[in-house]
């Protein structure tokens, strides 16, 4: 391959072949969605169990009036699962990076979007604690923005629908009591991360 006297048609063929060969690696992108899907689903359902236990008669007698202790259990649960998620993500990223030969523009945009979303999750979480607001509606809203935008970037309809479902679940959390919010968050994660994640994994590039 070293021809110098190309015709314009030949040049155009080379350009179009090079450009069409670059497609987003769906399978690779789905790994991160599935990781956070499972981590957050487990965190939501364990949160529900913790709330159920804390509301039992025996636990209520022990923790009565001690709302800080209850809050500590719930926040601790989310923090532990998030730390586990970030540790797995770190090693997963390292492995992906090791084998990766092409970094597409789209993948970079999506990665930057989720970095900003992660920072937003953290800041919103701190703000909610400070202002005494239940975090899930805000968290689901941020997840909805990032998931819908990712779906629009890669033009993948199940992810767009999953992202929109986050908005609906975000509103739904305002109509139920605290312990059932955890169940709604779990359902939102299944619809918004896990189902689109598995569909992305099996999708043709």
């Amino acid at each position: 391959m070293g021809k110098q006297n190309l015709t314009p048609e030949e040049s155009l063929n080379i350009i179009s072949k090079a450009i069409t060969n670059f497609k987003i690696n769906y399978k690779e992108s789905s790994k991160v969605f599935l990781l956070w899907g499972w981590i957050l689903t487990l965190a939501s359902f364990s949160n529900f169990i913790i709330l159920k236990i804390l509301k039992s008669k025996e636990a209520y007698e022990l923790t009565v009036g001690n709302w800080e202790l209850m809050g500590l259990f719930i926040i601790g649960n989310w923090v532990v699962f998030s730390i586990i998620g970030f540790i797995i993500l770190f090693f997963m990223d390292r492995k992906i990076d090791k084998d990766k030969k092409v970094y597409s523009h789209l993948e970079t945009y999506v990665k930057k979007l989720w970095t900003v979303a992660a920072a937003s999750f953290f800041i919103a979480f701190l703000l909610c604690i400070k202002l005494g607001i239940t975090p899930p509606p805000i968290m689901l809203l941020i997840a909805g923005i990032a998931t819908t935008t990712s779906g629009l970037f890669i033009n993948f309809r199940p992810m767009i629908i999953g992202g929109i479902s986050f908005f609906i679940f975000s509103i739904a959390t305002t109509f139920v009591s605290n312990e059932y919010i955890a169940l709604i968050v779990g359902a939102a994660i299944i619809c918004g991360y896990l189902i689109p994640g598995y569909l992305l994994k099996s999708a043709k590039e």
Partner: protein
Amino acid sequence: MYKDLDPLIHSQLRLAIISMLVASEKVEFSHIKEETKAAAGNISIQIKKLQNAGYIKVKKTFKNNYPKTMLSITDKGMTAFEAYVNELRKYIDL
């Protein structure tokens, strides 16, 4: 013939390399070798020419003791590519 076309880009291998870089954020050397099926030495020479012209950036790193060469296009390279495509359109009458 086709004297308005940038001679640095208007070569089969260099055009393939620069087109791949336009389409992505960064590309590893081995991927270019796989796609173009050209010899590593020849690719290196063409990369050097594009790098010297300021069209591409070359970053060499090590991953598990193996060298990894990542290539990306510069703003100057992108402008030159756009100009090349515009000239090409005149010839093809698009």
